[in-house]
């Protein structure tokens, strides 16, 4: 399905207001230094599309930081998430493989996936550590979004990709003035895409691709990990903010209730067993574990990639550790 229209920005936001009655509509909002999703209301200001990227990864809409997984609450409320960058959409592949596997599909994840309408957007502005292109991902939505949008001045171009997207967005064309996208606006979108791709290529020219990174990690010795983990404080921010890291802790509550809470292999004791043995006891081993998981082990067991190049782990690291610097260093050392 390929359908698209253009609509004036103020009409689009009136449409979102209509939707926000029965649904929860999330939009990307600029606050102080960051961009993040906020629930759309009439008063909301500073909505910014086409900028990479909301602080919150998409996974949190399906896997909340903490949730009671014992009580099944009825909720038919649709969540419409607008402004998703393509790195986060790509990350859905591995999340779906883990949480919707045939043997143990997770009912909570499944329910939220079903109740969500995903509207992706182009990245016309990237941040310092964006590197989706290095892993074969385009800086605009290609798959997994029900629709996607690009804003050029006061015009919003919406492309519809699925029945779900069509059902929702047909409501806009019924009430507001929409038209087929003008050729000159589509041309601007294309130019901006090309420009961003060029920028990504320049800033990541020495970064090895996903597969090569896996090979480099496999061959690496301890020294490089010891060196780069020196400032790691095991805070787990890299894993918590990662769109593909989904490890969790199950906490027991009275009446046999279970609470699922975000966890990270970077926290000491993550793999410790009752007798006390802990394969991840050493900090550099723990630090390396996350990269082995992403670039070596997950690709062996799953069909999806486990890093989509969003760069959030680099931006969130209070120890100023850049995984990309590690991989560039390894790659440079491996050159003849």
């Amino acid at each position, binding site marked *: 399905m390929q359908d698209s229209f253009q609509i004036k920005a103020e009409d689009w936001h009136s449409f979102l207001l209509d939707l926000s009655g029965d649904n929860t509509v999330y939009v990307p909002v600029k606050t102080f230094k960051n961009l993040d999703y906020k629930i759309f209301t009439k008063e909301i200001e500073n909505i910014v599309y086409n900028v990479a990227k909301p602080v919150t990864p998409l996974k949190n809409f399906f896997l909340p930081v903490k949730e009671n997984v014992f009580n099944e609450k*009825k909720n038919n409320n649709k969540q419409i998430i607008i402004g998703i960058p393509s790195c986060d959409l790509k990350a859905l592949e591995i999340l779906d493989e883990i949480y919707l596997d045939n043997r143990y599909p*997770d*009912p909570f994840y499944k329910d939220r996936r079903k109740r969500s309408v995903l509207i992706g957007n182009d990245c016309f502005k990237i941040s310092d550590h964006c590197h989706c292109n290095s892993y074969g991902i385009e800086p605009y939505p290609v798959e997994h979004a029900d629709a996607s949008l690009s804003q050029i001045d006061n015009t919003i171009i919406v492309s519809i990709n699925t029945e779900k997207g069509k059902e929702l967005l047909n409501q806009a064309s019924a009430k507001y003035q929409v038209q087929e996208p003008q050729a000159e606006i589509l041309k601007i979108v294309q130019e901006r895409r090309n420009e961003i791709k060029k920028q990504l290529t320049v800033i990541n020219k020495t970064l090895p691709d996903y597969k090569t990174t896996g090979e480099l990690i496999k061959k690496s010795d301890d020294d490089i990990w010891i060196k780069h983990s020196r400032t790691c404080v095991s805070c787990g921010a890299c894993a918590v903010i990662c769109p593909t890291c989904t490890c969790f802790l199950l906490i027991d509550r009275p009446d046999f209730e279970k609470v699922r809470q975000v966890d990270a292999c970077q926290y000491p004791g993550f793999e410790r*067993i009752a007798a006390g043995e802990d*394969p991840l006891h050493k900090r550099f081993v723990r630090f390396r574990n996350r990269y082995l998981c992403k670039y070596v082990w997950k690709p062996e067991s799953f069909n999806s990639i486990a890093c989509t190049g969003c760069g959030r782990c680099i931006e969130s690291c209070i120890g100023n550790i850049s995984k990309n610097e590690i991989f560039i260093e390894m790659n440079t050392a491996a050159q003849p």
Partner: protein
Amino acid sequence: MPSDTNIYKPIKAKVERVIDESPLIKSFVLVPEHDFSFKTGEFIELSINGYGEAPFTPSSSPLDKKKIEVTVMKAGYVTEKIHALKPGEVVGVRGPFGRGYPVDKFYGKEVVILGGGCGFAPIRSLLYNLIAEKEKFEKVILCYGSKTPEDCIYKPFVNELRKVERFEVYRSVDKADGSWNEREGVVTVLLDDINMNISNSVAIVCGPPVMMKYGTLKLLEMGYPETDIYLSMEKNMSCGLGKCGHCMMGKYYVCKDGPVFTFDEIKDQPDIWL
């Protein structure tokens, strides 16, 4: 609303009996609120209400759908709470999870079982299964080791096992006392005593990590192919569903892909002996 069965919700089970096996090990006979089926080698998550949950491979017969027995060594904070359980108390059970022993692959073969300490638990369940189909195996040899004679568990079961046709039992303790008239030494010494046709044999190992390691090395040295050594791995299985990540062993989620693996499957993964 989630429409599928809630994979995180335990069923309730009543503690029927508590058996003191050794100073550190107790067995608990549990009666689940409804019939419970598992294949030998698969595991369950046992929860203490409001306190915590831990993985155990049942030590009872997979043919018994009414009761589950687990054998627990006091090692961490959940097992300490389990040890305090009294008959009549209620626990939570989730599962069964994972991949157990592929018993049908053992048909027509000699089955050599190497067990140590509390690692006898999954093995006893397997032995119940093998006894039920005993005519399908050439013979079954159990080699079991523990630290001292008083640490040997399942004494009545071992006595019964010695009487079963085609089954042989060998035991050793690291440190013997006057009461002990079997072997002294680490469990692998028992492998020197037994007669088996390695080319038509499979080996099963379950015990503490160090014993699993040296047991496997000895079996390899004896000529067992890597594909015929079955190991029941111990990791921090938490969700049991291949999702939470706590039991990852390289590319495997031990809870979903294991806990039973052949040595061939896991030999290249990190920290298999912890």
